[in-house]
């Protein structure tokens, strides 16, 4: 990868984002015509903005990496990320908009008239936001280190600094335009290189064995192992070793390793022959990376897959940066239309990462060994095309990747900072919003330095699991069940979201390493979501006296189209 193209591309994206954010509004909306000025955001523009905010590092880099390492089972990730909007469309979108709530804590207060539940929802927004910001920063670090060889933490620091500065300075004024711009940028950055790569693949004779067989080397290749790994061999492997294998130093010796587990120390270079299948690698304990959830996925594929499906299907509705964007729709029907458009836009985008994953299995299989599978998207153009063309396409992808980090990170930072300012920090005001922004970004930045690399898409999956276990019961029951009570909602969020959060923390801490317990903790959604629903329902039924007054009027407002609303006398309370 040639940094002389990529670095300007990344810089260009950053500058363009800041400029569109600061001046997009001024240029497009200064007018003396009221009808032009008060044109609300149409469903298509809003959908592009939601998609731009939603498509994060996990979508841009992570999915291709997972498909590369683990094959077609991982296609559930893009399916889940998209289908979450279907659930949102069916159950939540229009009533949420009609509730008039801007954030999730607002919704809790509007539905249950309880400050305690509001604060609890705020705490979960902060938790989910931080969990989701973490992989964005890690992804940025990875991208920059692949592009320029910079240290791992630098990319994260750059993204954090740019986002904190623009958000704190109020530079994201025309956020809808920025995010819509980012969506089209991301789509272009994946689509154009994908077309070239597919052409190159055709020219190569269109080899098709990407998924049928274990990935194999198509030519002789030298792989440098950056972190200690354990190789699991099913058959003998012949390889030339320059470094340390199983504690014995070798210097360019040709070895045949017997079946079993072999430890490769860091810095070792392995030369594989053409046609050798790529061996399965495990991060050795004590390495810089936390154990991935991949292991439990291999042991219990069905459980892991269902856990993933449930988390992504139900988690989307609780993502704080997605929820606030629905406020921009002028009414409930527009919110539904927006969601349909989002489904189309996101569906189109998610066709692309699996293409990169499949091509990566063919042309860059050694990434499974070096631990940089997430970088597959960035490396492929250089690998398959080479030359200036490859460098330029690589630069385009790098720019798109940074757009992904920036847009998702700024959306999340605004959401988290908003909650911190409103519900946690002592008093309100502009200065406190700035303080909130800094805190919102500092915590995940510190955490990303501490926990090392979980695969990006996996880490996002954990944020989805927490969101699905806490906010999904609150939203679905809050909108569709009139007997929900504040104690029930609080208990359900605490039990469902709290246990999911504890499981996530245990997984990140690498505890326990293996076995059924590990699988349960690594994929918590399958038990924590039903637990959250059950607790919320049972506690609500046990406290029938605490159903908020005016529930019928509130639910009528959620569900009636706005035209009919004048017929209903809603209770207006002023504090």
């Amino acid at each position, binding site marked *: 990868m040639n940094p002389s193209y990529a670095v300007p591309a990344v810089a260009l994206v950053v500058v363009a984002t800041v400029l569109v954010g600061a001046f997009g*509004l*001024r240029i497009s*909306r*200064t007018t*003396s*015509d*009221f009808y032009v*000025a*008060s044109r*609300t*955001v149409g469903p298509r523009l809003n959908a592009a903005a939601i998609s731009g905010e939603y498509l994060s590092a996990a979508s841009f880099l992570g999915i291709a990496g997972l498909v590369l390492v683990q094959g077609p089972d991982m296609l559930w990730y893009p399916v889940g990320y998209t289908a979450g909007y279907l659930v949102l469309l069916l159950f939540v979108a229009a009533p949420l908009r009609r509730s*008039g*709530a*801007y*954030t999730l804590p*607002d919704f809790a207060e*509007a539905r249950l008239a309880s400050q305690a539940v509001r*604060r609890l929802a705020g*705490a979960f927004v902060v938790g989910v936001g*931080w969990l989701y910001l973490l992989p964005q920063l890690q992804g940025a670090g990875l991208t920059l280190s692949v592009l320029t060889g910079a240290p791992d933490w630098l990319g994260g620091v750059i993204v954090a600094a740019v986002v904190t500065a623009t958000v704190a300075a*109020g530079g994201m*004024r*025309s*956020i*809808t335009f920025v995010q819509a711009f980012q969506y089209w940028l991301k789509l272009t950055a994946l689509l154009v290189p994908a077309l070239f790569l597919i052409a190159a693949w055709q020219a190569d004779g269109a080899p098709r064995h990407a998924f049928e067989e274990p990935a194999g080397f198509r030519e002789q290749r030298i792989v440098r192992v950056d972190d200690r790994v354990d190789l699991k061999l099913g058959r003998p492997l012949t390889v030339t070793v320059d470094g340390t294998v199983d504690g014995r130093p070798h210097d360019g010796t040709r070895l045949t390793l017997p079946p079993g587990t072999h430890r490769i120390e860091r810095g070792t270079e392995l030369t594989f022959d053409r046609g050798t299948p790529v061996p399965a690698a495990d991060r050795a304990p*004590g390495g810089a*990376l*936390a*154990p991935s959830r991949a292991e439990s996925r291999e042991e219990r594929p069905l459980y892991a897959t269902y856990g993933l499906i449930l988390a992504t299907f139900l988690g989307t509705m609780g993502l704080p940066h997605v929820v606030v964007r629905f*406020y*921009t729709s*002028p*009414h409930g029907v527009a919110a539904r239309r927006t969601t349909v458009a989002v489904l189309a836009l996101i569906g189109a985008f998610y066709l692309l990462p699996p293409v990169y994953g499949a091509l990566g299995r063919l042309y860059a299989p050694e990434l499974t060994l070096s631990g940089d599978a997430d970088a597959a998207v960035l490396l492929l153009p250089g690998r398959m095309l080479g030359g200036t063309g490859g460098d330029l396409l690589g630069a385009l992808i790098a720019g798109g990747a940074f757009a992904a980090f920036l847009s998702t990170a700024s959306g999340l930072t*605004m959401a988290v900072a908003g909650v911190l*300012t*409103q519900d*946690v920090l002592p008093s*309100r005001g502009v200065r406190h*919003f700035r303080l909130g922004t800094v805190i919102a970004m500092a*915590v995940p930045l510190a955490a990303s330095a*501490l*926990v*090392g690399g979980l695969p990006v898409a996996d880490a996002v999956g954990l944020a989805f699991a927490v969101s699905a276990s806490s906010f999904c019961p609150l939203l679905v029951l809050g909108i569709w069940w009139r007997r929900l009570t504040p104690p029930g909602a609080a208990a359900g969020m605490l039990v469902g979201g709290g246990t999911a*959060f*504890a499981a996530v*923390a*245990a997984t*990140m*801490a*690498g505890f326990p390493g293996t076995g059924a317990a590990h699988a349960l903790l690594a994929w918590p959604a399958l038990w924590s979501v039903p637990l959250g629903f059950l607790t919320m329902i049972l506690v609500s039924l046990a406290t029938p*006296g605490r159903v908020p007054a005016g529930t019928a009027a509130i639910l009528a407002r959620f569900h009636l189209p*706005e*035209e009919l*609303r*004048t017929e209903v006398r*809603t209770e*207006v*309370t*002023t*504090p």
Partner: protein
Amino acid sequence: MSDFLAGLLVAVLPLLGIGFWLGRRTAHPEAPGELGTPVEHATFQTLHTASLAAPPLRAGLTEETARKSARRLRSLLGTDALCLTDDRRVLVWDGVGAHHRAEVLERLAGPLETGRGEAFRLDCDTPDCPVRWAVVAPLTVDDRVHGALVACAPRESAVLVRAAGEVARWVSVQLELADLDDSRTRLIEAEIKALRAQISPHFIFNSLAVIASFVRTDPERARELLLEFADFTRYSFRRHGDFTTLADELHAIDHYLALVRARFGDRLSVTLQIAPEVLPVALPFLCLQPLVENAVKHGLEGKTDKCHIQITAQDAGAEALVVIEDDGAGMDPALLRRILAGEVSPSGGIGLSNVDDRLRQVYGDDHGLVIETAPGAGMKITARLPKYQPGVHTAGRIDRP
């Protein structure tokens, strides 16, 4: 190992945060151990319990508020059982012996009628019933009996009779304050209702005069202006809901400005810069139009040349920031302060002070108008509108013409 520690740290940090937050919420202002003598300590305890029982009662006497305050009141009196009633039923029974509910309610008829306290023996078939005796103290607000406080004890006690009377009087004061709060809210609501129906009579007169001047020379224009006038008055006389959306309010301002432009022609120019994200924000009905009217008045006052008005609405996180700026005559800040304080009445139309009052009433005191002005330097009015506020929602959808 370092992974494990790092992960643990990440897991523990949020827990610490939650713990800190809970601690801050539940912390007592002062630890009782810091106080001096036992008497001072007891005084402090009593006052503290009383102050904890007060806030729920400030919302009036309902089952919910009675439930919240009964436990505190019981510990204040130190009895085994305490009961709060309104004039018909038992609201809450805190403590032992709840099977006496019906009996107590029967015996209440007298005290509720006369408004005088009473003590009586409780009949009970249960041999080891913990309460044998009850004292009733009525709760009166403005000489009307609203309910009663009943304290039960195992045996007669003159001290309890006195104490119950005092506590009942204290509760009555809280209820009186609740009544006062209520009437204050009603007053402000009535004020808002009175305000919103009021568009400036000068404006109606001037508009009709302008339209009349066009009737012969340019009938088509006169017809258009009449329609604008009809649209504007329909909006301002609208009956349903106290709140509207920013988009609708902007359309009303547009109709208003069309009529003003017919009168002043080219002397008035307006620029808009509206972030589309904030158009769905709900806000009190007709609270921006008076600001624009004010800007027009100040902009054209005492000047013969042009006036420029700029209307900006920005997205600022959980709030919308609306700024209305004119380059007109401006105003002396001291005079403006007196107008806003209600000491001087403004010279007609819906004044700034009314808009300011309404915004404060709906959104709280930190959301009043911010006005920057000086004589000859124009005026800049900033309003901060939260995107969400409990109880603020629009009645109808934004309809596009």
